[in-house]
């Protein structure tokens, strides 16, 4: 971006005049500010300004101050390519400074005892009075507000992402229209057999995608043949990631800026869904006997499960990103009494017992020897809460399924019942239509014995009776209806707009309410969806930076044009938080500290620690 500074200086200056007023630069003398924005040669001295900045900011390693800005960009946002969030051509001059500032936040982490406190305490944040004044006025800007046009967010058309591509039978749509629609989707998932038979595609019917599948198969097979398996490639702003699992090829095509490993774990979840339907030995057998088998027949009826899983990734799932589960926040004593009721009513047919409210875990009971793997629970939650197949029918369900992380060779049997208003009734009354899945309470009982339906039903009836007698059901309902905690209640005065907190030991996470900052306006569902995807994209970038190979980051502070974010990882927890673009690091870290303290204090309410063990 530096090289064309002279040639394009007048042009970019004109751009600046038309564009919305640039954000206040993060750190500059107020006298310098004017000059920087007006002089045509604004971009030329970028490096100089940065190095001055860095030297005054007392970088521990002097040589770092001479880094070029492009190198810094590579460090601070390694996966920026696809998202276009901070595209170099659009970035106002202050962007460079913001980038270099974010690099700066690496420095204190290199000290052995480096933590956020030292970040805050150090002289790094000394600012002029005028700047403090300016910042305090703009601190109320919410994340992503500055980019309301959606331009450059990479999410153009995201609100139509999940619309169906019209059937060939629909009058007035030509094949060209359908292909154009298909290409406009920001995310694709494809599954095909190594023989090239299509198995699943999120968008488009067979007639539409058959040729694309053929191309994909040819490309992958070529590399397979050369004993150099293809892992992924980039075309324009689209990233292709390929995963090979035995006889199956999985392809993710994304314009949403996820990292390779994130896309790969999404593909892995789709593979787990297939294993959950078929088991590994069955899948292998099918292809050993006939490599050209059409797997769509054995998988019939599970397309909706694959699609709801895929869509949860496309919408952005914190649970999938962190590989962790969310629990319903309850008092320790309340959870204890639920666990105890559950444990008392169990019989020897029961392997695992779960109570889940609106996709959040309420209680788990399990044998001492076995624990439940989050990826298995993700499949169960997807089946029960994202895809409509189970809850729509009403009644009780008896579902054979394989939990691949538990044992990919055989089936377990899952009893599912949604609690209704009248839990005492032995006959499961039909669940009322609910627009919202937030308050649905389900009991899930898993057994290895396929004949144990009535045994598990007996547990369910007793547990339901007990929970409603001791008031636990009311407590669960109230907690589920209360929603996620809001930031002001957690960290009063903190300017943070949203956070994710993962407890690494418990493999569970909690997050703050998406309202109001990411709730969109009222019932505007598309706007809500886009706002949430922006937030999730940012979390994906943070997560990718923190977890990139050979990076041993502890703290990462990023400032972009439209949002500031902070990631903080210790052996105990991972914290990701997002705030408006003008929040100083000091304010941000103070907020983060408050959240950590809150999470520590509330640990036994937020997370299930151990669960009921028998």
């Amino acid at each position: 971006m530096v090289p064309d500074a002279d040639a394009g200086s007048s042009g970019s200056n004109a751009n600046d005049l038309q564009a919305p007023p640039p954000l206040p630069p993060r750190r500059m003398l107020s006298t310098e500010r004017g000059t920087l924005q007006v002089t045509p040669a604004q971009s030329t001295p970028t490096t100089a300004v940065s190095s001055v900045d860095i030297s005054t900011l007392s970088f521990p390693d002097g040589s770092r101050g001479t880094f070029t800005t492009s190198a810094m960009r590579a460090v601070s946002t390694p996966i920026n390519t696809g998202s276009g969030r901070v595209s170099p051509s659009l970035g106002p001059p202050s962007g460079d400074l913001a980038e270099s500032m974010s690099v700066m936040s690496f420095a204190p982490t290199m000290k052995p005892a480096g933590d956020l406190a030292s970040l805050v305490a150090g002289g790094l944040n000394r600012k002029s009075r005028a700047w403090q004044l300016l910042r305090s006025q703009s601190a109320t800007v919410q994340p992503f507000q500055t980019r309301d046009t959606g331009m450059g967010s990479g999410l153009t058309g995201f609100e139509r992402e999940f619309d169906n591509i019209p059937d060939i039978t629909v009058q007035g749509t030509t094949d060209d229209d359908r292909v154009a629609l298909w290409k406009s989707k920001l995310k694709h998932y494809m599954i095909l057999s190594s023989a090239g038979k299509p198995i699943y595609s999120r968008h488009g019917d067979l007639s539409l995608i058959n040729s694309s599948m053929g191309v994909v198969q040819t490309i992958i097979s070529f590399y397979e043949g050369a004993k150099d398996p293809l892992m992924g490639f980039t075309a324009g702003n689209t990233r292709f990631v390929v995963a090979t699992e035995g006889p199956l090829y999985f392809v993710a095509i994304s314009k949403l800026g996820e990292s390779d490993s994130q896309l790969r774990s999404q593909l892995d979840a789709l593979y787990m869904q297939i294993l959950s339907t078929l088991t590994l030995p069955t899948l292998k057998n099918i292809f050993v006997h006939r490599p050209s088998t059409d797997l769509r027949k054995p998988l019939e009826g599970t397309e909706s499960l694959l699609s709801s899983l895929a869509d949860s990734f496309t919408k952005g799932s914190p649970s999938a990103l962190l590989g962790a589960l969310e629990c319903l926040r309850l008092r320790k004593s309340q959870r204890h009494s639920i666990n105890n009721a559950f444990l008392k009513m169990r019989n020897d047919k029961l392997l695992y017992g779960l109570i889940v409210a609106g996709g959040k875990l309420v209680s788990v009971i399990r044998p001492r020897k076995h624990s439940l793997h989050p990826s298995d629970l993700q499949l169960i939650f997807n089946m029960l809460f994202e895809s409509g197949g189970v809850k729509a029918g009403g009644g009780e369900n008896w579902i054979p399924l394989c939990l691949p992380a538990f044992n990919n060779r055989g089936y377990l049997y899952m009893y599912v019942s949604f609690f209704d208003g009248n839990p005492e009734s032995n006959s499961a009354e039909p669940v009322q239509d609910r627009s919202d899945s937030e308050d649905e309470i389900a009991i899930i009982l898993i057994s290895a014995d396929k004949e144990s339906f009535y045994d598990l039903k007996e547990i369910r009836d007793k547990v339901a009776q007990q929970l409603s007698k001791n008031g636990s059901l009311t407590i669960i309902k109230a907690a589920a209806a209360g929603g996620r905690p809001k930031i002001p209640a957690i960290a009063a005065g903190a300017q943070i707009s949203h956070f994710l907190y993962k407890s690494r030991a418990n493999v569970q996470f909690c997050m703050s309410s998406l309202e109001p900052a990411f709730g969109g306006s009222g019932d505007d569902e598309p706007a809500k969806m886009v706002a949430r995807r922006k937030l999730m994209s940012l979390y994906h970038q943070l997560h990718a930076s923190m977890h990139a190979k050979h990076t041993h980051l502890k703290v990462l502070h990023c400032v972009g044009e439209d949002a500031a974010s902070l990631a903080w990882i210790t052996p105990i927890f991972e914290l990701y938080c997002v705030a408006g673009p003008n929040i100083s690091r000091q304010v941000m870290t103070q907020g983060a500290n408050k959240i950590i303290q809150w999470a520590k204090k509330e640990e036994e309410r937020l997370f299930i620690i151990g669960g009921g063990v028998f």
Partner: protein
Amino acid sequence: MADSANAPKPSSSVKLVLLGEAAVGKSSLVLRFVNNDFQENKEPTIGAAFLTQKCNLPTRTIKFEIWDTAGQERFASLAPMYYRNAQAALVVYDLTKPTSLVKAKHWVAELQRQASPGIVIALVGNKLDLTNDGAGSGAAESGDDSGDARKITTEEAKTYAEEEGLLFFETSAKTGYNVTEVFTAIANAIPETSLKSARGPGASHAAGRTEEQRVNLNGPRDPNAKEGCAC
């Protein structure tokens, strides 16, 4: 009869199983019967669903314990668990899809071979709303109109049902036409004697235990094995 109306009617449980090809409308029939509701584009059942509904007859009350099974081929090996000790079965096909009647005939044969000897079987042709008879008069046989999606004539199915001694209905879960009638007819067809022998889920459950080892889902899959050696 006047005084018997005041006394509580005898009540008995009947285990009923629904079988049939995928997407013929088994769950929709149950939803209509239990909930008097209908959902367009319902997602496929996974495994099986268990529901109950009472059916009031003049002399007694029948409590149906309904097993609504998934129609996909991979669940076929689990079916014996559901039809074992069942006193009634609904074998459903789609009036607009000939292969679904073939599948229904397979289920009838399997039930006659393997289920309890006294089982009451009803053959049900669903999706009548897609045919010209959909308006309601199920007897009318109009036929050749362009809007008619019917592929299986009433005669064809009816003749088959009579040969096999099955109850026969054409229904629409969408409009509700004939749905309650199917269940009432089944309730009436269940002999009093069989009601006494099996009462409540506990009874049928205990009996089910003896045959526990009959089906093994983890073993080699029949459908796939067949597919494997077919060519």
